[in-house]
C-alpha cells in the first residue's frame, strides 16, 4: 500500500511542481507581448488561474506525504542511520520542517493572489510564490534522492 501511496505522492508532487514553476516564472518574468515562442508562452501563462489548483495539489501532496512518512520513520530512516548517511537524513529532516512551514503559508499565498490585491501586493505575491516554489523544488529533489538511496519496493 505504501508503494501505491508513494507513487501517488510523486505524481501529485510533479503536477504541483509544474504548476508552481509556471506561476513563479510568469510572476517574476512576465511577458510584455506574446510572440508565440515557447519561452514567451511560459512567461505569459494566466498565473492567477493556477492559485486554487496549487493550493489543492499542495494539500493533497502533503496529506499523502504525511501518511507515507510513518514508513520512512520505520524503515528508511533506520537504513540511512545504519549506513551513516547523515547528510541525506538531515536533508529529509529539513524537508519535513520546510513542508510544514509552507503548509502554514498556504492561506497567505491564496490571500495575496486574490484579484482585488493584484497591484497593491505584487512584490509580496512574487516573493511568497517564489518561496513556495523553492520549498517544493527542494522537497521534490530530496524526496527523490532519499527514495533512490533506499530503492523502490526494497
Amino acid at each position, binding site marked *: 500500500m505504501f508503494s501505491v501511496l508513494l507513487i501517488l505522492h510523486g505524481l501529485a508532487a510533479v503536477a504541483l511542481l509544474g504548476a508552481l514553476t509556471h506561476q513563479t516564472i510568469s510572476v517574476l518574468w512576465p511577458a510584455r507581448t506574446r510572440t508565440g515562442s515557447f519561452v514567451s508562452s511560459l512567461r505569459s501563462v494566466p498565473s492567477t488561474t493556477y492559485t486554487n489548483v496549487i493550493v489543492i495539489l499542495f494539500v493533497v501532496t502533503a496529506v499523502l506525504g*504525511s501518511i507515507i*512518512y*510513518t*514508513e520512512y*520513520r*520505520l524503515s528508511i*530512516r533506520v537504513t540511512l542511520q545504519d549506513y551513516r548517511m*547523515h*547528510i541525506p*537524513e*538531515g*536533508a529529509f*529532516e*529539513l524537508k*519535513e*520542517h*520546510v513542508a*510544514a*512551514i*509552507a*503548509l*502554514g*503559508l*498556504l*492561506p*497567505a*499565498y*491564496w*490571500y*495575496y493572489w*486574490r484579484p482585488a490585491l493584484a497591484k497593491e*501586493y505584487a512584490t*509580496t505575491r512574487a*516573493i*511568497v510564490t517564489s*518561496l513556495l516554489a523553492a520549498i517544493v523544488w527542494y522537497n521534490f529533489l530530496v524526496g527523490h534522492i532519499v527514495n533512490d538511496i533506499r530503492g523502490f519496493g526494497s
Partner: protein
Amino acid sequence: MSIGRAFPVFGIAFAVIYIASVYFNLALLTYHPQLVRWGMLVEAPKQGPAMYWYGWLLTSALGAGAIAALSLALPVRPFDRVWSILVWVAPLAMIATIAYILRGYVLR
C-alpha cells in the same frame, strides 16, 4: 471586515510557533507508528520510534489560528503593510533557524 486579512498573520505565527514546537518539543500529539497508536501530548518512544511531527503541526495550527483571530482586532492600516513583509521574512528566518538547528547532520 475580511477574515482573509488574518491569513498572513496565520502564516507568520505558524512558522514561528512551529519552530518553537520543534525546538522545545511542544507536540500536542505523539504517534507511535510501530504500535499504530496515538497519544496525547509528548510521550516517550514505547516500541519503535515516536513521531512528534503531527503534534507540532497541531500545536502550530491552533496557536497560529488563535493569534490570527486576535489580529483581526488590529486596524487594517498600517498593519497590512507590516504583515505583507513579515509574511515572507518570518518563514525565511525560521527556515534559516531550523537549518542551523540541524547543522549537526552536515558537520558530523
